[in-house]
């Protein structure tokens, strides 16, 4: 496996990355902020049966990881940045999420109605 092989692998990876359709879907979006181990709001209501964008803004001084096993989602958000996470459509119910880097205090729920 020489240089050619790696060039091919890299080329394939890059073309895949750029060819992916980056759909800026017009979905409803909901905002959440996290600051030093606390989410705001800690309870977020969303309509059930509809896909939506969750925009999580990290207003704290350090990075945080939004994580939810209920929603099957995980994403790191560095300080001062926002992250978009696509969720749903959800069945009616309560879905917990937490900040992996502050699992004791950073906890919240998404309630789909």
């Amino acid at each position, binding site marked *: *496996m020489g240089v050619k092989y790696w060039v091919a*692998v890299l080329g394939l*990876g890059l073309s*895949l*990355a750029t060819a*992916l*359709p*980056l*759909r*800026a*879907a017009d979905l409803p979006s909901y905002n959440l902020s996290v600051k*030093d*181990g606390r989410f705001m709001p800690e309870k977020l209501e969303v309509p059930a049966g509809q896909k939506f964008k969750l925009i999580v803004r990290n207003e*704290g*001084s*350090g*990075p*945080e*990881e939004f994580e939810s*096993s*209920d929603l*099957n*989602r*995980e*994403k*790191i*958000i*560095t*300080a001062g*940045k926002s*992250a*978009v*996470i*696509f969720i*749903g*459509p*959800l*069945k009616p119910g309560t879905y917990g999420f937490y900040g*992996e*880097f502050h*699992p*004791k205090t950073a906890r919240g729920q998404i309630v789909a109605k």
Partner: protein
Amino acid sequence: MLATAIIVFREVLEAALVIGIVLAATQGLARRNVWVSLGIVAGIAGAGLVALFADVISAALAGAGQEVFNSGILLFAVVMLGWHNVWMRRHGREMAQQMRDVGQAIKVGDRSMYMLAVVVGLAVLREGSEVVLFLYGIAVAQQDSSRLMISGGLLGLLSGAAMGLLMYRGLLRISSRYLFTVTTWLITLLAAGMAAQAAGFLTQADLLPPLVQSMWDTSSILAQSSIPGRVLQTLVGYVDHPNGMQVLFYAATLVSIAVLMRLYGNAPSTKVQTVNALGT
């Protein structure tokens, strides 16, 4: 301190298990430890870089950078793992013969370790970058004194490594007649699980449709967020409520590796026969 240790442990666990399996799969190969160490060192360096450029990665590709990056790394590791299985199936016997000669053993070891060293490096890079970001966060927020943070981090790292060691030692207890079959299966399942994880990232970024939101839900029996859940997630790709795309990726990887091993794994090696013929 304990909180720090637990979080670091959870992150280190996956990489440690991967290393444990790789070590068992390469038992007896010359310079194996050199290759695995190289993988770990490169992974740690990579983890630092990824953490340093976390902002850039996240902002890339209209905000989908992190998901594409993670899934890219996972899928690359899947290819390496699959390739390793095919390669070992094809050259295993030839290797066993060549390994009697010390000089040959080193060459053979290098050839077969190459792909798995990359897998080790990628696993360390992915999990390690999260550890680096997490520790950086603690340092910035000054929640803990730096001494507590370092001891917590070390405790987590050591316990994670201990799990990897347990995995390795456990596998070595298997009779050497079956060890190769077992590690081949473990590597296949590892690959399938990584593919499912990659599919999860791509659906999260809305680049792939989930097909079905939740194929089943076994979170009440074994939660994925629990430590046993995490271990099983790494080993066999356990997801407590996977979406359709994850199941599809999982199955496709299992089938692809099995088919490729059949198609390309059994070709007779004429080279060895010639060498043997010349030798006698």
